[in-house]
């Protein structure tokens, strides 16, 4: 199912040895990444590993402080997200980048307003917003509601459908499914596959290996700001991936430790055991993804 592009084609996005400091805080260093068209790259890692920092560099929100960044073979130093957008790179940020006081439809089209002459085509924008959200399974009461009054998941859906609607070459999704219901998550996975099919490069960040493995073609694992592995799908199984994501060894240790205590700890150990089991760490069978 993975439509692997020949190595020789110029990747849409290539980061080489990129790093980023916030003042004296080193959030990221020496990370290398390639995204080609028709390919989904999953960025995985613990909390605070530097995933969002990485995609903010690609999205033009932050400038990298070391290394290089190329888009379609050409070295770039984006000083604003506008430039990234002009290169066809659309992003869903983890902290969403919505303007709470503005109506939903204005947020949806913000920066990409559709115009008829000088005026905005408000009717079209409102309908499109309503429709795109309905496609994600979000039935809004009123697209004129300030977006700040939507539920967390609803807001997330607005940000996702916006990026999908405007994404031209590269689509970046930072934990898009975090706040989503089961159905909406399914729709997002479908969107990712559709984007890949259309030849877009997709960067997908998630903590859920069940989401990452089926759709991903390559996997970048980060830990404490550094890369701890960069794999093609063919080089890694789902269970190995989940084990890496979870820091499996530590988890199992915790589980054993708890089991030796009694009461609630024992209960917790059971749960953890199941968790570990779910993650496929203790499974031998390497169930391949579809």
């Amino acid at each position: 199912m993975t439509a692997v592009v020949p190595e020789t084609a110029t990747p849409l996005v290539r980061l080489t040895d990129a790093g980023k400091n916030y003042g004296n805080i080193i959030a990221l260093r020496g990370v290398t990444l390639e995204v080609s068209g028709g390919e989904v790259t999953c960025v995985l890692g613990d909390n605070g590993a530097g995933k969002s920092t990485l995609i903010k560099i690609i999205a033009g929100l932050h400038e990298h402080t070391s290394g290089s960044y190329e888009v379609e073979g050409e070295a770039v130093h984006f000083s604003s997200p506008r430039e990234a957008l002009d290169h066809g790179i659309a992003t869903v940020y983890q902290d969403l980048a919505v303007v709470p006081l503005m109506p939903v439809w204005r947020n949806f089209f913000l920066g990409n307003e559709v115009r008829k002459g000088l005026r905005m085509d408000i009717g079209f924008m409102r309908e499109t917003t309503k429709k795109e959200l309905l496609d994600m399974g979000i039935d809004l009461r009123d697209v004129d509601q300030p977006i700040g009054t939507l539920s967390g998941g609803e807001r997330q859906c607005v940000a996702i459908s916006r990026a999908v609607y405007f994404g031209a070459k590269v689509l970046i999704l930072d934990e898009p499914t975090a706040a989503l219901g089961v159905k909406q998550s399914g729709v997002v996975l479908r969107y990712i596959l559709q984007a890949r099919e259309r030849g877009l490069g997709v960067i997908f960040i998630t903590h859920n290996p069940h989401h990452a493995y089926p759709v991903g073609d390559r996997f970048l694992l980060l830990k404490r700001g550094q890369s701890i592995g960069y794999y093609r799908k063919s080089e890694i199984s789902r269970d190995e991936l989940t084990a890496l994501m979870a820091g499996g060894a530590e988890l199992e240790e915790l589980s054993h430790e708890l089991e030796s205590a009694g009461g609630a700890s024992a209960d917790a150990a059971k749960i953890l055991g199941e968790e570990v089991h779910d993650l496929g760490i203790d499974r031998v069978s390497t169930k391949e993804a579809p």
Partner: protein
Amino acid sequence: MSSTLETRPGPPPPAASDERVARQSPLSRLLARPEVGALVGAILIYIVFFIVAPPFRQPESLSSVLYVSSTFGIMAVAVALLMIGGEFDLSAGVAVTSSALFASMFAYQFTLNLWVGVAAALVFALLVGFINGYLVVKTGIPSFLVTLGTFFMLRGLNLALTKAVTGNVATNDVSNMDGFDSAQKVFASSFTIGNVSIRITLLWWILFVAIGTWLLLRTRLGNWIFAVGGSAPSSRAVGVPVNKVKIGLFMGVGFLAWFMGMHNLFAFNTVQSGGGLGNEFIYIVAAVVGGCLLTGGYGSVIGAAIGAFIFGMTNLGIVYAGWDPDWFYFFLGALLLGAILLNSFVRKRAEAMR
């Protein structure tokens, strides 16, 4: 208490009428608009003065009130847009005077047609706006501070340059110069409807409010103004050219400051170099009374116009009513506070009702 597994029938699929939305009367929907609270306040104050001040009832008085309101209200248009865009301009009041001084002295000293001075002043005013905006976006210093600096500097320049150029604290009378009559027609004439003389600034005010409202609600730029005021980082993240929008808004203030400067020049023929001080404050008050948030991202131009009207009406109404002038500011404060409280009360009602 605990039900069995068979699920209760789910709610019907979304239809024209959504079961998750309560019915809302058109009145309450109206009352929820940002400017309506201010409007209710304005009407109430109007009624108060209509009752207590017989001279206030004459059409001429309304014309005076509207004139005064327009002199605040025209600037309030630009100031409201700037505030919706999340910034302040404390130099707005003196910039009006600076523009007028500039036009007058420029034309006078070089003995040019006044229109040349008018044009030069426009360039100057836009430049002041640009510098304000540029400093704000490039340094990230709050606009309150930056424009405070330019406020002091312009204030000093107004006096010092006027004294250096003319030797006085006011400019020379320009009413005999070329171009005065035509410029006065544009900026400071009046016309009569029935028996009532109406100032042209009223028409300009209506025009600017209309343009401002249209810009804000119907154009892409308006969308951007709301966005940069509501959350500049988020706007930047989705590609809004935040810096350009903000600089543009400061230049908009410069433009209307120029306009008001020209009005002052051609209405009064000379310009006092100390004028305009403190007016920046009135513009902000008009905008805020009219529903603009100080923190940006919310407000309306029509609201600011109503705010200016409330302020102008209260100012003159107290005089028409012949109330003890010692108590002037007390009444002014009480009426303003009353209008604001009423405004917030109406909005809360509206929200509870809908």
